[in-house]
């Protein structure tokens, strides 16, 4: 199941979890208000944007990898 080296960029997908779940206890007590909004909330909003960016990056890298894989038709790498 370990992805081949070409798919290592997939580990990026863990970043949103670290930001939006892992960081919850850390940001909860911060009292600083950005634009009047509670910090914990702004943190999550930023997390949402980060997640979209991460998925976009992974998507583009996946597409590039799979295009290259299809072009070099020697290794029949199973699509994961």
């Amino acid at each position, binding site marked *: 199941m370990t992805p081949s080296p070409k798919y290592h960029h997939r580990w990026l997908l863990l970043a949103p*979890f670290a930001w939006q779940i892992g960081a*919850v206890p850390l940001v909860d007590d911060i009292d600083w208000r950005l634009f009047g909004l509670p910090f914990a909330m702004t943190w999550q909003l930023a997390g949402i944007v980060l997640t*979209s960016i991460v998925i976009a990056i992974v998507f583009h890298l996946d597409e590039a990898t799979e295009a290259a894989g299809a072009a070099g038709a020697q290794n029949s790498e199973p699509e994961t």
Partner: protein
Amino acid sequence: MIQILTLAIVLGTVAGAFLYSQRQARARTITEWAVGGRRFGILIFWFLNAGEIYTTFAVMGISGFAWAYGAPAYLALTSVSLSAVIGYWLMPRIWSEGHRHDLVTQADFFAAHYRATWLSVVVAIAGILALIVYVQIQITALGLILRLTLGHDISPTWSSGLAAMLMVAFVFLAGLRSAAFAAGVKDVLMLVVVVLLCASAASRIGASSMLDIFARVQDLHPGIGSLPGRDPQAGLGTVWLMTSSLNVALGNWVLPHLFQLCYSAGSRKTIRRNAVLQPLYSLSYIFIIMLGFAALLADTRPPGGDGNAVLISFVSQHYPAWIVGLFAGTACLLALVPGSVLLLTAGSLFARNVLKPFVPHLSARGELLASRLSLVVFAAVAVWLTLGASRSLVEIGLSAYAAVGMLAPGVYLAFLWKRANALGVFAGMVAGYLALLPAFATMWGGLLPGWETGLVAMIVNVAVAVPACLLAERLSARPRARATTT
């Protein structure tokens, strides 16, 4: 005025959806009806997906949660984005296998992958139960809206019953295709309504701007912006948010109707591309939360202290009739469209995966009929549940996720572990459901304080399933070994 607008919106959408579906092919088979013939391109798929996010759980539930508790409403901000991450990995796999084996329902997947029809019957029943609970949410919400628009003299029984009948009627218009059209209408209207509500919310409650609403609510209720929010006794702290978010993210695509939604996409690329934008839809929750806070600042007291009715009460008390009507009509669609998709899924699951294994010669038309009849029954059950319970929409939602979460290990193990087998997965499911029983709640509360029970049960499920799979494997291998030696 309110009634007229509400009725206009709902009937208009119904008519539009009906005409739209008539233009498409008539549904002849359950495949056509349930997964739209597998030909949805990115636009329709996008609408259906976005539509899934704007449900009554989202709008009324979250605003009510923000009003009652504050920071715990951030669950809305974590669930969609993290679900999208998991979906990016999981959904293409579900799609590929669905295409390869011509699968229609979630239970089909279990039958095909684990080569065990009996397991698919169990999974179908579990899925149907979870779906009924989810329908309960929609009926609860729709009932509240009906009582608002038609007057508070209507009893909960009548409004819930009427809500269910409307939903069933909505479903009988060619299935998934009309849901796609209606979802599009719903999303556009939802956008309009939210903009209208938020644009004037601040001035209506005496704040200077939308940001000022947040500032004021934090000044008036110190600590509301941080966990555990307004009510420390409610157990909605940091651990709750972390475990609930994880539970929703893992369980999201295991919900039968979303699982099957994967099958309707045209390609893996469609699914993946959709996952990129999905998190961004949830940014709009900031406005929903803001409305909940605005209601709090306006000292809104919904009838019976029912958090679910906060937004309705707030809107009807502070906005002109035409906006109230627009809101009520849109809120009806918010309940009707997802509700119909849920009933549709439950019906097709029943006909194909519970009934058919016992009646193999069931014709395609018979299957269609069975699914339509059974969904009426399920709607009735949901009404009965609605009348018995009175919890917040978010709580009901989380319990639906907990119930369906028992199917999650079976799905994930299918893609992650070649040695997963039917018996092991089943053992895990049983253990998981036992762990959900109220009897164990206090034990989990002691061992893992603050943890969302659904996630605990999922862990128990996997912890039992893995060794059970190994054991089942060993047990089935032995007789063969004996046979070769003798």
